[in-house]
C-alpha cells in the first residue's frame, strides 16, 4: 500500500475508535449538544424580548432576536465541541495506548486526524440538532438551498480550524484539567463580538476588539447567509481566519506530537 492509502486507512481506523468513544462516553457527547440548546433557550426566552426590542428593527422582539442570536449560539456549540476535543486528546496523551501507537508502523498523524475527524462529526451533528431546535421554536431562515449549503461549508471550515487548535491545546496541556481550561476563551469570544448584540452598541475599546476578532466576521457571514442578506467582506475575512488558524494549529499540533513524549 502507498503512503496515501495508509494515511486514509489508519485515519479511518482511528475515526472508528473516536466514534466508539463518543458512544461509550455519552454523557460528554450529550453535554456538548445540550449546553448550546440551553443557551439558545435562555437567550431567546429570558433575554430575547428585551434584547430583540433593542435591535430596533421592524417587528423587534423575541423572534427577531432568535434570528440574530443563532449564529452566536452555533459558534458556542463549535467552541464547546472543540473543548471536548482538547479534553479527549489530553486524556489520550496521559494513557499508555498512545505510546503503543507511537511504536507501531502506522501513518503517524493518524492519532490526530482520527481526533479531528471524530470531533468534526460530533460537532456537525450537534450543530444540526441546535439548528433543528431553533427551527422548532420559530427560526425562519430566508436562505436559499445554496445559502444553506454555504452555511454548512462555513461552519465546517470554522469547526475544522478550532478543532485543530484544540488538538494542539490538548497536547500542550500538562494534564486533563489544564486541557479543559485552555479553550475556555473560545466559548466566551462570541459574547465579545457580534454574537449577542451589535458591536456598535459597545464602548469604543471593546468595540474595536469586537470588530477585529475572528468570531465577528464568522458570525456576520452566517447571519448573512441564513437570513439571505448581504455579507460584504465578512465571508472572505472569515475564511481567511479559518485557513490561518487551521494551518498554524496543524503545524503546532504536529510539532507537539513529534517531540519525544518523555523529556
Amino acid at each position, binding site marked *: 500500500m502507498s503512503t496515501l492509502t495508509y494515511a486514509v486507512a489508519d485515519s479511518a481506523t482511528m475515526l472508528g475508535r473516536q466514534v466508539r468513544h463518543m458512544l461509550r462516553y455519552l454523557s460528554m457527547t450529550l453535554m456538548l449538544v445540550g449546553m448550546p440548546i440551553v443557551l439558545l433557550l435562555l437567550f431567546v426566552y429570558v433575554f430575547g424580548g428585551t434584547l430583540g426590542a433593542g435591535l430596533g428593527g421592524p417587528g423587534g422582539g423575541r423572534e427577531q432576536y432568535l434570528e440574530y442570536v443563532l449564529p452566536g449560539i452555533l459558534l458556542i456549540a463549535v467552541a464547546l465541541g472543540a473543548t471536548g476535543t482538547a479534553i479527549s486528546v489530553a486524556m489520550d496523551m496521559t494513557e499508555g495506548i498512545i505510546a503503543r501507537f507511537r*511504536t507501531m508502523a502506522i501513518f503517524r498523524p493518524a492519532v490526530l486526524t482520527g481526533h479531528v475527524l471524530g470531533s468534526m462529526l460530533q460537532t456537525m451533528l450537534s450543530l444540526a440538532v441546535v439548528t433543528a431546535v431553533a427551527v422548532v421554536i420559530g427560526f425562519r431562515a430566508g436562505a436559499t438551498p445554496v445559502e444553506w449549503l454555504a452555511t454548512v461549508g462555513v461552519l465546517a471550515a470554522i469547526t475544522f480550524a478550532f478543532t485543530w487548535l484544540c488538538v494542539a491545546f490538548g497536547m500542550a496541556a500538562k494534564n486533563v484539567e489544564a486541557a479543559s481550561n485552555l479553550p475556555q476563551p473560545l466559548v466566551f469570544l462570541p459574547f465579545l463580538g457580534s454574537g449577542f448584540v451589535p458591536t456598535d452598541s459597545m464602548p469604543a475599546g471593546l468595540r474595536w476588539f469586537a470588530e477585529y476578532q475572528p468570531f465577528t466576521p464568522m458570525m456576520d457571514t452566517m447571519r448573512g447567509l441564513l437570513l439571505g442578506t448581504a455579507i460584504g467582506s465578512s465571508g472572505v475575512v472569515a475564511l481567511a481566519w479559518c485557513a490561518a488558524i487551521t494551518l498554524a494549529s496543524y503545524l503546532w499540533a504536529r510539532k507537539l506530537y513529534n517531540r519525544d513524549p518523555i523529556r
Partner: protein
Amino acid sequence: MTSTRTRPAIRATGLRKSFGDKAVLDGIDLEVAEGTIFALLGPNGAGKTTTVHILSTLIGADGGEVQVAGHDLAREPDAVRAAIGVTGQLTAVDNLLTGEENLLLMAGLHHLGREEGRRRAAGLLDRFDLAEAGAKPAATYSGGMRRRLDLAMGLIGEPRILFLDEPTTGLDPRSRRTMWQIIRDLATGGVTVLLTTQYLEEADELAGQIALLDQGRLVAEGTAEELKRRIPGCHIRLQFAYPDDLAAAARALGDATRDDEALTLQVPSDGDVKSLRALLDRLGDASIEVAGLSIHTPDLDDVFLTLTGQPDKDKEPAR
C-alpha cells in the same frame, strides 16, 4: 536469509540518554540473540524503562548505535516498528473499548483485513483466557486480565521481537506464573523477548541472558549461573527486634552487611555448624537478642545487592 541465525535481534553500542543534566543511560552495550529471552534487571531508576523506550522507538537516544531486527533505529524507525511488539509499564489498552475491540483496533492498524483480523483476535482472546471477557469494556478488567490483553495487543501483528517492560509488576503470584508461561511459550515459538524486571526470581526463571543495570550502567552480564558464581559462598542472615540490638551486633561482628530498615545483618559464613555455633557464641557473649536467623546459599538477590551496592531505592517518579 542465511545470516538470520547469527545476526543478533537487538544490538546496541554506547547507548546514551540524559533528561536535563541527569544522565539516565551512560553508555550501554547490549546484544540479544534471536529467539532468546533477555532480562534487564535493576532497581528502580536504573534506566530499564528508558532503555526499552529507546529500543522501541518511543524516544530518541542522545548517542550510540542501535540495530533492531537488522534495521538502524535512527534511520529506519518504521521498519523497526513493523518488527516489534511492545508492552509498557503503563498498560496500553483503550479503557472505553472492549477487549475484542482493542484487538480489532490493533488488527486494523496492522492492515490485516477484516477476516484475518477477526481470526487473530479470537485466537488471542482464547489463548490468553479472555474469550469470556472479550465483549466487556477493558476498564472492567482485573490487573492480570489487562496485562494479558495488553500483551495480546502487542502480538496481533506477530512481531519477531517483543519488549516487555516489567510485565508482572503488580500481579498476584498466580497471574505472574501465567504470564511467565505465556512468555516462555512465545520464546519457544521463536520470538525474541527483551524484558525488564526488578524481580530476580523472574529473571532467573525466564531469561537465558541477564544484564544487571544500575544507575545507567551495565554492572554485570551473563547467565543466571554465571552471575551467581560471582558471589562468594553463603551467608547467615540475622533478624533483630530493635535497632539497638542491630547496632550492638554490627559492632560485635564487624564484617557484616547491615540493613537498618529491615533490622537485619548479613554475615558471611561457610554455612557449617561449627561456624554457626561460633557466631551464636559471639552474640551470646555480648548479650544480644536475636529475633530470627536464616542461612542463605547465594541466589540472584545476592548478586543484585552485591553488584548494585544498595538494598533498594525509592520508586523513581513516573515518567
